[in-house]
């Protein structure tokens, strides 16, 4: 099998914004960042404010020039016009000129992306349907809510059927329904074999849809890889499991003997939610057996993996403690 070149490939990427006579010393936004994004992946870029995420995207799109290292996009140097032709980009806090409506905006951005008028006319209705703007397509964007603008921004990014989507905070301003629609779109794109590069503050969002993530912190790349692997890297083992059970409190405590369970009384008498830290699945199975043996009813069992948020904060903590 022929190995496909990575969709995004950065090696030792550095960026320092120059200072000036009145601006004081320069600011380093990226320090020796290297990673790849493979074709077909949904990749999330995480980091606190000022981590260098937007700079990273701007370098990929050629809006900002790197001060060191290499960046390639779709097997072309970052910023190359032919590369950009195959990219759909949704910037953060997108503003669409006030004289546009959805139809004219799509026409404008579509033609800037190299589409013909006929192609735009053909694709526009379905796309507006997908992002849920079909019924307001002729309204001026002045009347649009932030969420509607975001949908329109997503539509323009998808219009020219790009191979790579770079989405900067795509669900910003969207209601839960909108978010779920965006998630569905992202999965659909993944199914089509498109690569999606996602930059989001909403960790749950990233956790739900991304195959892999990279975490930037003060210009340093702290992590690249799967979310599961992240917790391992942090040295955290075991499962947090919550049991909803019914029975005598003493019997329940006995069944979790030695595991220091945390008991919370439920709404009804003898109904408890028990949170316990168990080593692995075998320990979970054993706990269930003991509960059943003690004639305790098991209403629900919810295993809790370590969340991305936990991992993210843990990672940042690590580096704060050991800079």
């Amino acid at each position, binding site marked *: 099998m022929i190995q496909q070149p990575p969709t995004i490939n950065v090696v030792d990427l550095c960026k320092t914004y120059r200072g000036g006579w009145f601006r004081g010393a320069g600011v380093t936004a990226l320090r020796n960042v290297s990673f790849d994004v493979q074709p077909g992946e949904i990749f999330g870029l995480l980091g606190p404010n000022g981590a260098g995420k937007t700079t990273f995207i701007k370098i990929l799109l050629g*809006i900002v*020039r790197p001060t060191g290292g290499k960046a390639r996009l779709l097997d072309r140097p970052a910023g190359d016009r032919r590369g*950009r032709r195959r990219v759909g980009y949704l910037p953060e806090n997108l*503003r669409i*000129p006030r*004289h546009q409506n959805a139809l004219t905006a799509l026409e404008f*951005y579509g*033609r*800037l992306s190299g589409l013909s008028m006929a192609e735009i006319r053909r694709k526009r209705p379905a796309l507006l349907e997908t992002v849920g703007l079909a019924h307001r397509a002729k309204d001026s964007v002045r009347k649009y809510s932030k969420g509607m603008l975001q949908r329109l921004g997503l539509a323009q990014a998808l219009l020219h059927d790009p191979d790579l989507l770079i989405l900067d905070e795509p669900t910003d301003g969207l209601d839960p329904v909108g978010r779920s629609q965006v998630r569905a779109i992202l999965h659909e794109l993944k199914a089509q074999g498109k690569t999606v590069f996602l930059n989001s503050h909403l960790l749950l969002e990233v956790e739900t849809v991304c195959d892999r993530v990279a975490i930037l912190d003060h210009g340093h790349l702290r992590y690249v890889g799967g979310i599961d692997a992240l917790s391992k890297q942090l040295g955290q083992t075991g499962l947090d499991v919550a049991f909803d059970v019914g029975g005598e409190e003493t019997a329940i405590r006995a069944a979790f003997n030695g595991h220091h369970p945390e008991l919370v009384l439920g709404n009804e008498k003898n109904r408890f939610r028990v949170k316990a830290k168990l080593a692995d699945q075998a320990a979970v199975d054993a706990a269930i057996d003991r509960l059943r043996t003690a004639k305790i009813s098991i209403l629900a069992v919810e295993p809790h993996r370590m969340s991305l948020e936990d991992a993210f904060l843990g990672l940042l903590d690590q580096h704060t403690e050991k800079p």
Partner: protein
Amino acid sequence: MSAYLAIIKDSFREAMASWVLWILLVLIALALLVFAPIGYREQLTTGLNQDDVYDWSELAQTIREGRREEDTPAARVWSLLSDEARQKLLKFRRLPAGAGPERRSKYVVARDSLQASFDNLLQEASLYDDVSWQRVDLANEGRRLLDVTDEESGKSAKSDPSILSDEQRARLNRLLFEAAFPKTVKVSLATSVQFTYFGLDIFWPAPVRADRLEKILQPAVTLVLDWFAGPVGVFVAILVTASIIPQTFDPHSLSLLLSKPISRWLLYVTKFLGGCAFTLISAVFLLTGMWLILGLRLGIWNHQLLLYIPIFLFLFAIYYSVSALAGLIWRSTIVSVAASILFWAMCFGVGTAQSVMENIAYFPLRIKNLIVADDQLLAVNEVNTPYAWDAESKTWKIVFLSDGQAELRRRMSFPVPFPPLTGPIYDAPKKRILVAQGSLRGPNNKKLWVGSADDQWRRKGGAKANDGLFALFQNSHDEIIGVSRQDILRLTGDPAADAKALAWMEFIPGLQDDIFSSADAEPPLRLSDSAAAAFDSQNDVLFIYDRGRVFRFTADENRQYRQTAAARLDVDSEDAAVLSVAGKTLLVACEDGQIFLLEAHDLRQRSVQVLETRGPPRFAYAAPGGGWMSILFHNGRLWLYDAAAGKFLLAPVGAQGDISGTAFSGPNRLLIAHHTSRVTEYDLRKHTVVSRRAPAITLTDRIYYYGIVPLYTVFPKPGELDKTTQYLLTGKETVAVDNIPGLASAQIKFDPWQPVLSSSIFVLLMLLAASVYIERQEF
């Protein structure tokens, strides 16, 4: 490419979405609607307006004197006047020199009332009767009106003027009046134009033929466009479009644009062009509207008016290039507008400095006439101040001013314009110069002055000269011959006699014109204000050009001037011309650029050609001996006619394009005045410079020529694009500084393409700077 077209289309959308544009379009529509009901009607010229009479007091006097004679026009007019009008006429007197404001305003009231009486008389009464007008030489048009016959009754207008329509009768009255008092009443055009608004008459009828309407409306249209529509339109356009670039390069919308596969600098340039869309829409609307109104309502289909559309666009582009660059760098609409205003102020400052220096310190001092007085050289500048060259100090010394003028000259720090001069001519046998000049209060009240080298060119005399006098010559008998609008005159009095002694005689009828006596032109002259004359001194032949016709007058044995030939030239009859005569050749250089060569003895046309198309001729002279003739054009170029070779040549002298005056100082010696006040003398056969007269360069000259002029040259000149439009509309690169008829009055030469060139370079530099900035900048 289609991506960039999309940007332009988007800019159009943006413009169309702007409410300011719609307000502007509505305002333009309203302005056009206000002008739309204007129309005109061509009608016979009737009545008598203020300007139709050279000298009201003389007219009044003529009628007063003639009222008691029998069967004269004056008696007829008197008989038809009301008692009240008669009283006014009897009381009406010339305004004495030095009259106070109260006296002056009384005079004006009396004059206006007299004019109203005559106007009423000519409009309403029927002046013609069999006997009163017998001795009057009525113009052909008048004779034709009298010959009109009523088919039914068989009566002619001669026997019964009532068969004429009211308008025809009033026209006949006017013609009779002109013929009866040719010295004081101007010859009128057969028709004039009456403007209407919603079909109602407005203003006085304009003394112009309908087909010349365009010519008189042109300045008004140009004025509106250059001084109102242009600046206001551009300012509004800048206010509206100033936000386009800052908005486009706003970080929130810019990164999306920059992520698209388009080039940055082209994005900027395209946005810039798109910003011009706004101006384009407004300009197209306004100018197409004006063009349609002029065409549909006044019949003037001036397609060149539409050329203002690109000119407006260009004017806007100059300011917008600055506004856009500021908007790109600071991303602020306010800074963008402020930068345009600052830029305007700079352009205005540099332009004003240049223009003030040019118009106050240089143009007025430009020498237009050179007079060779034996071994001395005299000159007259554009504001009619005479100079004499002082070889010792190498300066032009002001001479020949009246006490009043000298006083005025001393008090004012800039050259004061004095009334136009007729002459000066040098009377070699008597070693004196003669010149006629109106008073500071107006072109009328002309007086004749003399001065001689022995007396340091001090002005003497001041006898009243005929107000219509427009040329002075000396004939073979060393007599001074004057040509006025009404007659050919001969100087018979002593012009050097003290005028103060004569002053009181002004009030005695008949004594006023004593200094000149009539040389009895036959037929009598009735020349327009733009007539010109040339004189063949050796053969005593006078040539006159007027309204497309040339006349030859020869002195007979009684020294009376009789017309011996006449010819019509194929030119617009309202075009002025200058002429000169050398030997057998009469040269007539017409306003439209055609140069006619006619046989001097019978006025047969020998040839016609065009030498300069971009400016009318100003002066034509002949060298003593007739070997050369010169034609100086208003654009500063001098052509020569080599009589021996029979051909024209561009004068082989330096400073072509900057020549303001010329004269012949010998059969083959040519003097040219150039670079304001320098004079160089050439030998035309040997092609050498004979002498130079150049005043020393002053500090002001240095500041002007080495500071202001270079700065002005490289600076963009948005304020001067009106010159380009003027050129495009008229095809002329000279513009008259006053509205004195004829060609001798100064016209300022301009280079129509210089503002376009310097401004284009400026716009390109601004776009280049912005492109470099945008390519290098990180957003």
